[in-house]
């Protein structure tokens, strides 16, 4: 019997600590690498959206008088919605305060405001009845009903894919969102806030009421 077996082999423990730390560091490195690659993809997607938005605006500017017939001006809107879903998933994985998430959300909000202005213009020109919903929320724990409201809006969008919903994190720090707040007099109002066309709805709005407004 090797009586040394009982004794702690300090060198062995130390080597395993080093090995574990190395494996641990390697895991963190690979995790970050994969995440960065995914972030780059999302950023590329955002750039594509920007190009699409610009193309759409140009197409609109150059269109003939029949611009309201047969053109689906909301293709970008749907892409934006997909982007929003992806960002929401990313936020729940990486955390609300993750720097990359915040940056992507800021840029996303700018694209949303830009496309909202465009759609608003098209809607007026074409006298369309399709409602446009703006949704302001906060996910910093100061809005108990925001999650519920978000769920109802997702439900509505899934049921009515043609519906235009633009969601904005009220805490996103950019001038465009500040501008929207001023435009609709949102400061001091309780969240969640919905603007269905020009109607401002303060606090939680149920499915029934929303259905009435968009029908």
């Amino acid at each position, binding site marked *: *019997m090797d009586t040394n077996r009982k004794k702690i082999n300090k060198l062995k423990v130390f080597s395993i600590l080093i090995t574990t730390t190395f494996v641990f560091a390697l895991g963190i490195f690979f995790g970050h690498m994969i995440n960065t690659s995914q972030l780059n993809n999302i950023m590329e997607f955002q750039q594509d959206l920007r190009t699409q938005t610009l193309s759409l605006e140009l197409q609109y500017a150059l269109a003939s008088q029949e611009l309201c017939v047969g053109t689906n001006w909301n293709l970008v809107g749907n892409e934006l919605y997909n982007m929003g879903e992806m960002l929401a998933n990313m936020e729940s*994985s990486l955390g609300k305060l993750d720097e990359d998430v915040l940056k992507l959300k800021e840029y996303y909000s700018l694209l949303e405001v830009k496309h909202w202005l465009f759609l608003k213009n098209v809607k007026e020109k074409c006298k369309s009845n399709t409602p446009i919903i703006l949704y302001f929320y906060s996910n910093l724990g100061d809005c108990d009903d925001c999650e519920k409201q978000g769920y109802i809006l997702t439900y509505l969008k899934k049921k009515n894919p043609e519906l235009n919903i633009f969601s904005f994190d009220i805490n996103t720090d950019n001038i465009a969102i500040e501008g929207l707040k001023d435009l609709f007099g949102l400061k001091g109002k309780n969240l969640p806030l919905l603007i269905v066309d020009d109607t401002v709805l303060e606090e939680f709005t149920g499915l029934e009421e929303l259905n009435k407004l968009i029908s």
Partner: protein
Amino acid sequence: MLWNIFTYVTVYFGLFTGIFFLFTFFENMGGLKVRKAKRFPKVTIIVPAYNEETTLKGTVYSLLNLDYPKDKLEIIVVDDGSKDSTYEVAKQFIKKGVKVFTKENGGKATALNFALTKSTGELVGCLDADSFVTSSALKKMVGYFEDPEIMAVTPSIKVWKDNCLLQKMQKVEYLMGVFLRKAFAYLDSIHVTPGPFTIYRKWFFDKYGGYDVGNLTEDIEVALRIQRHGFSIENVMDANVYTISPNKFKSLLRQRNRWYIGFLTNVFNYKDLFGLKHGNLGILVLPSAFISIALSIILFLYTLGNLLNHSFKNLINFYNVGFDITPFFTNSQNFYWDFSPLRILALLSLLTGILMITLTKKYSREESKIGFAYFLYLIAYWIFFAFWWIIAISLKTLKRQVSW
């Protein structure tokens, strides 16, 4: 933030212990060779039985089939005051040379102590009446006793027939136990000498007393006593013993309550084993057992809290859309694959587990396929483990009685 730190600490701990035990195993793989016995000492195998009329026959037959000189093998069955026909079943084996006794019910330890007074073997072991031993096991084990420091030799315990999901999960748990017991043996830190077929030197009981009567896990007590006296416990990875595992949640919970409360009680009684004096056992193996229990419980409670919170929120959300959740089943391409560092690290920990199971299968000559069982084990075992421990700790704190 605090939770993130906790999860990283948990993963680091899991990786460290996994790598440590794997390293220990690889470092000592030369010791896996069978130590051929130069002589065959007389061995007494005791079968304590209480209401085991259905399984006793199989147990005794497996002992009669042992590849060991018949004149060197003594089999003693002790009926511990069974209420069924256990004693009648046992008596059928008298003509095959099995010694059969019956006594008033007093618990497993009393049955074992009774048999110790009747045994004539130089080595003595026990086989629970719900377990079966493979024919080559004893021959593989006795060779280790040529080293005078070895006081006990443990076999590999495996699950006999995994018919239901609970048994499949236990099958992998037992295989993991086979690996760990071998790694503990290399560290001279085995702290459980399982009831089924651990072989001891008889003189240890003569000198240091028999089994601890009233102890919920007398096998843990004996192992800790051996360690306290500075002797060693070995393990033979391919000496296979099969045991019938509980197939009902309630009986499994009852078994774990007994094991875990017994473990806590015995480790408390032998708390002097912690610390530098007892080397690997006192500094690494016993503390890491407690750390893993604590981490599992915290992880379980946090996950349970989160799950309840999410379920409650979802219920409200479903209510708000009139329980029409069909639109959410549309195929969404907008999924963000979370490959956060934590998940990569968890995956690495998983790989250490897979490697342990693979090594166990190879060196303990386990031929059955365990793919699905392993998947089940990964998903569910930690939940069961934490749950059993929470119940056991609660019962221990409330000083509730648990019987064997």
